[in-house]
């Protein structure tokens, strides 16, 4: 991987010996590339380009059969049984045998790429080189190809691919080589390579990097696309949990407020959200009720804020004290805004106590915010009232 012009395709072309390196050499299993003859190389290494443009009416079978050229023994004899078998196996492996008699041009992008991969497999290679194989494919085509490649890799095929999609690369590749300006800048696992520092150095982009442990995917977001904490704006404390706070955090920060949050347990997605946005957050251990210390911290955070927003999270015995904190806030003169109080009955898992607290809050001057998206409007009008 690497920015445009970093030399990815050039490197690939050196590996396939289409270009000769000016310095250095390519060795495969300690054998220098230039000592192999053309047929040997084609039997060892197969290449899948970005796309294949063909003006002639070859069938898919014809295309895959061309992969057997390195095994042709004579110029006068046609294909052998071996060749026919290899082609059939390759096409069945890639689920393309069903279109063997169809014209290659009439196939979809994803189908064409699979036929090209079949052709590469027909060469019976040990190494497969791919140059941005998914760039012209839609999302289902992309995963089709990448899943196929992953399976082939598990079966023992070495795969080197130029990819541009960090998400795809981190999900499927064991190792990433990051190029810049014709040099290898970093090589290692996706987690090791895709750090904000590397990305800043190579792409000149200030980013936030998020890892998803379940899918192994890494998403990279430029900081300009997301809000960063500003100092100097009025402080709002957000009582949240269960993912209810993420959007509100962003909305508030976009408007220039500085935000704190709590109490959230460390496995809660609102904890991740707060961490991403560098929001100070009061935390609690998972599966525990909000303890006294966390509760006290929460109240202190509220004390330092001008307003409190109560998000629409499901209320259970574990986080009931977040509601109690809202009462405390109101009693101590803080403006309290309640998101979507109408639905409290559906979110109440403490036998109506949550509903009672909400009613009490509304009765004592808390402001109702029917929808999250109304929050900013209401905040502004409240500011005016103040």
């Amino acid at each position, binding site marked *: 991987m690497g920015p445009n012009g970093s030399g990815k395709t050039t490197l690939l*072309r050196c590996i*396939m*010996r*289409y270009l000769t390196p000016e310095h250095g050499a390519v060795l495969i299993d300690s054998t220098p590339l230039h000592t192999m003859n*053309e*047929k040997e*190389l*084609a*039997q060892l*290494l*197969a*290449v899948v*380009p970005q796309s*294949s*443009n*063909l*003006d*002639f*009416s*070859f*069938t898919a*079978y*014809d*295309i895959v059969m*061309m*992969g057997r*050229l*390195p095994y*042709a023994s004579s*110029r*006068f004899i*046609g294909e052998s049984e071996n060749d026919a*078998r*290899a082609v*059939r*196996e*390759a096409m*069945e*492996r890639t689920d393309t*045998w*069903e279109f*063997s*008699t169809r014209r290659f041009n009439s196939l979809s992008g994803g189908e064409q790429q699979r036929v090209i991969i079949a052709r590469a*497999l027909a*060469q*019976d290679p*040990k190494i497969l080189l791919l140059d941005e194989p998914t760039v012209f494919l839609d999302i289902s085509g992309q995963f089709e190809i990448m899943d196929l490649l992953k399976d*082939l890799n598990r*079966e*023992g*095929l070495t795969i080197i691919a130029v990819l541009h999609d960090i998400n795809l690369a981190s999900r499927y590749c064991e190792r990433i080589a990051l190029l810049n300006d014709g040099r290898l800048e970093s090589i290692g696992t996706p987690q090791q390579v895709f750090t904000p520092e590397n990305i800043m150095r190579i792409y000149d982009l200030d980013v936030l990097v998020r890892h998803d442990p379940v899918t192994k995917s890494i998403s990279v977001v430029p900081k300009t696309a997301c809000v960063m904490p500003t100092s100097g704006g009025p402080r709002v404390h957000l009582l949240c949990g269960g993912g209810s706070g993420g959007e509100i955090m962003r909305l508030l920060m976009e408007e220039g407020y500085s935000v704190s949050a709590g109490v959230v347990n460390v496995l809660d997605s609102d904890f991740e959200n707060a961490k991403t946005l560098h929001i100070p957050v009061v935390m609690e251990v998972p599966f525990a009720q909000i303890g006294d210390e966390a509760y006290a911290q929460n109240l202190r955070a509220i004390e330092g804020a001008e307003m409190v927003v109560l998000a629409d999270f499901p209320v259970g015995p574990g986080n009931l004290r977040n509601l109690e904190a809202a009462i405390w806030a109101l009693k101590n003169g803080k403006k309290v805004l309640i998101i979507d109080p109408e639905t409290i009955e559906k979110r109440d898992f403490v036998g109506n106590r949550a509903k009672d607290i909400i009613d009490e809050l509304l009765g004592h001057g808390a402001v109702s915010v029917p929808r999250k998206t109304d929050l900013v409007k209401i905040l502004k009008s409240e500011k005016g009232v103040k």
Partner: protein
Amino acid sequence: MTGKSIIPEGGTASEDPLIRIRRRRGMALVGLLLFLFATVLVTTLMGSLGPIGGDPSSERYISFDRAFNILLGSQDAQSATIWNVRMPRVVLAGLVGAGLAAAGMAMQAVFRNPMADPFIIGVSSGAAVGASAVVLMGVAGVLAAFTQPFFAFVCALLTVFVVYRLGTIKGNVQVDTLLLSGVAVAAFLGAITEFMIFAAGQQFHQLAFWLLGSLGNAGWVQISIMLLPIVVGVVVIFMYSRELNVLLLGEETAHNLGGSPEFVKKLMLAVAAVMTSVAVAFTGIIGFVGLMVPHIMRLIVGPDHRILIVASALGGAAFLMWADAIARSFIELLPVGVVTALCGGPFFLYLLRRRKLRGE
């Protein structure tokens, strides 16, 4: 194959379409061969000196019966006509037709363009200059009747060499540049030829006649000179037909599949240059054969060059034999190039119609 193989038991239903296609192509080739044989027979018997278009009362008239008997070996006053005039003409047509079609096919592969023809690399413009110069300067000398063909041949090859050099960068043949250099050189040499036409005066007709392409100079000597280059050329093209298939996929892919694209391009250029130059040297510029025949054959037998080369050679031979038979049957001495050009127009209209129907 790395990994598990999934070979089903025996041949399945999906195997049949491939075999069907192969059988169809095989039959097409056999059909072509038979057609060619029939063509040879019929066209030898046709002509203004004989059964069609001739004057029955003339002593030179040959009826079908008589012509057939001559072919079977009987002695006749008109044997010489059949064997020394008619037959060589038919054989020459076959040879030139096959050579031009094969060269055209090779050029269509090298340029990855079904609209390429064998003159795309400058053969026709070079030969024209050579042939015209000979007419204008009235050069005779040692070679006598072979002076014009010799100069045409040499100039044609020289021109191809210049075009090749212009289109090759650092030893790599750049097909796009080659095309442009062919156009540029043809334009320049065309201007020279036009000037010579202007300056021709009395020899104008002689000059123009050569340029239109004709099989009038057919003789067994000419055929013996042309036989080797054309036959060897077709065989060499056949030998590299798998590489030509792969060349169509692009330079990089051809390289990755071990198809030696640089070598194959140069070889094809050389072979096509020699075949076409030899043909043009003796017959002038017969257009459209090298373009239409491979194109039509590709529509019939498919793009696989192993079959296409055979189909093109046979088809080209038959086509030119018919064109020449028509040319000499209706107006004596009509240059065959006129007939082939007349076929060109409808051919392109047909192609255009096909494209429109397919909704492209």
